């Protein structure tokens, strides 16, 4: 019995596998487990179902075309060839293509990338930039041919005839188109400033629109400092570019409407502002006129004589009061004067003389006491109707002493 080496056996078994046509271009349904992707780009996993497991490998040359990310638990249909890995003596499936079961691979890739970028916050409303109100330059990233550019051109020129359009032409589908789109967005941001960017293409299948779901395009839109309006496909098509854009337009025409103000509306706005200006001035003047009229109608300014008459009347009253008070005061004083005059009259010596009294005068001075005279003094005796010279005959002694004492 011949003895074979391990290598010989493995090689023989491998050749058996490779002769079997059933194992070539076979399609196998199963669930992915133990999925590993190495830095080399080669992917290793196990396909399993309830009854068994099968090792699988997908080399970089194939795996790089995968749109979605294979994950453990994902039900897939893998197609490829089953052969033997001689080093390990193991048979395995060499995967050419992998498709998620039940859903399209694009749909799955879309959902996966959407979940990933949502997680990163790329679609957060807080990042959305406002569009400029009066843009001068609109940057456009789309293909030179096609209806998109014409639609944008017509709508924007109709709304604002002097708007300037700058087109960076790109391929919008197929190999390399996503990279072109991302580079064009970066180009406007770094080299060619515009006020707003419109990024888009016309309608098509999900495959046609796919570039706008590519991560590099979504990230370029997110990174753009210039506000981006996305206009991809029709109103019902949603791409990840739409989620990352500052504003999503339903169509390219709609994008132009969003980007460019309508000069007729702006003109109406200005005319309206001017009308409000005029009406404010009219109102301002009218309200002042009313206030002025109200002032002019006040009695003070309307008939000054009324005001004078009132003052005249008050003056008259005051003068009347003054006169009355003066008269009253004069009467009182006259009365008091008469009383005083009567009392004064009572003290008039002439009155005493009239009643029969006499007054003696010595050298012009009234004599009121005995001590003031000596015998032989010559006195004047004043009577009611004249003077009589008299001579003192004698002065009683006791009276003189008494007077002398009193005089000391």
């Amino acid at each position, binding site marked *: 019995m011949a003895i074979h080496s391990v290598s010989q056996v493995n090689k023989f078994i491998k050749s058996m596998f490779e002769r079997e046509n059933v194992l070539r271009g076979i399609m196998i349904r199963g669930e992915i487990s133990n999925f590993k992707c190495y830095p080399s780009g080669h992917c290793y996993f196990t396909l399993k179902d309830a009854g068994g497991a099968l090792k699988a490998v997908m080399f970089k040359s194939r795996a790089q075309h995968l749109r979605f990310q294979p994950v453990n638990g994902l039900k897939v249909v893998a197609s490829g060839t089953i052969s033997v890995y001689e080093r390990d003596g193991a048979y395995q499936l060499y995967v050419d293509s992998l498709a998620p079961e039940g859903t399209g691979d694009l749909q799955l890739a879309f959902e996966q990338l959407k979940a990933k970028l949502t997680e990163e916050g790329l679609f957060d409303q807080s990042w959305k930039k406002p569009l400029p*109100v*009066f843009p*001068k330059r609109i940057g456009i990233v789309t293909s*030179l*041919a096609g209806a998109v*550019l*014409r639609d944008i*051109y017509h709508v924007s020129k109709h709304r604002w*005839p*002097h*708007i*300037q*359009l*700058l*087109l*960076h*032409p790109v391929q919008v589908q197929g190999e390399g188109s996503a990279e072109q789109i991302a580079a064009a967005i970066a*180009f406007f941001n770094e*080299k*060619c400033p515009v006020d707003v960017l419109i990024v888009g293409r016309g309608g098509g299948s999900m495959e046609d629109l796919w570039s706008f779901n590519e991560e590099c395009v979504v990230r370029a839109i997110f990174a753009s400092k210039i506000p981006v309006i996305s206009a991809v496909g029709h109103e019902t098509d949603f791409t990840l570019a739409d989620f990352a854009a500052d504003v999503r337009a339903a169509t390219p025409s709609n994008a132009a409407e969003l980007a460019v103000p309508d*000069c007729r509306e*702006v*003109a109406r*706005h*200005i*005319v309206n*502002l*001017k009308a*409000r*200006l*005029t009406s*404010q*001035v009219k109102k*301002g*003047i009218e309200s*002042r006129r009313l206030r002025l009229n109200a002032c002019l109608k006040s009695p003070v300014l309307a008939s000054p004589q009324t005001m004078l008459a009132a003052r005249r009347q008050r003056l008259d009253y005051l003068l009347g009061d003054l006169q009355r008070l003066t008269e009253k005061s004069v009467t009182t004083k006259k009365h008091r004067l008469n009383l005083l005059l009567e009392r004064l009259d009572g003290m008039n010596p002439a009155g005493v003389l009239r009643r029969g009294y006499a007054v003696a005068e010595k050298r012009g001075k009234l004599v009121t006491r005995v001590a003031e005279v000596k015998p032989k003094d010559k006195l004047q005796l004043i009577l009611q109707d004249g003077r009589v010279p008299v001579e003192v005959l004698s002065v009683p002694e006791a009276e003189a002493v008494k007077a002398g004492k009193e005089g000391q």
Partner: protein
Amino acid sequence: MPRKKELSFEESLEKLEQIVASMESGDSSLKDLMANYSEGVQLGNNCLKALEDAEKTMDLLVREDNKKVIKQELQIEGE
């Protein structure tokens, strides 16, 4: 009122809107009211004129070639 520099359309329009808003909020003196009015009318007329006779700009086809920005006139198919 002499202007130091020519205001852009946007600046003029914004100024006009501010003037109208301030007039509508009331409280300005008659002197201010009249000054605002004449300035506002002037701004409004400038804006309307600017809408009519903005300079014609050329649309461009732009791209980068060997680190240089290339600009050509943009011809729209069928225009």
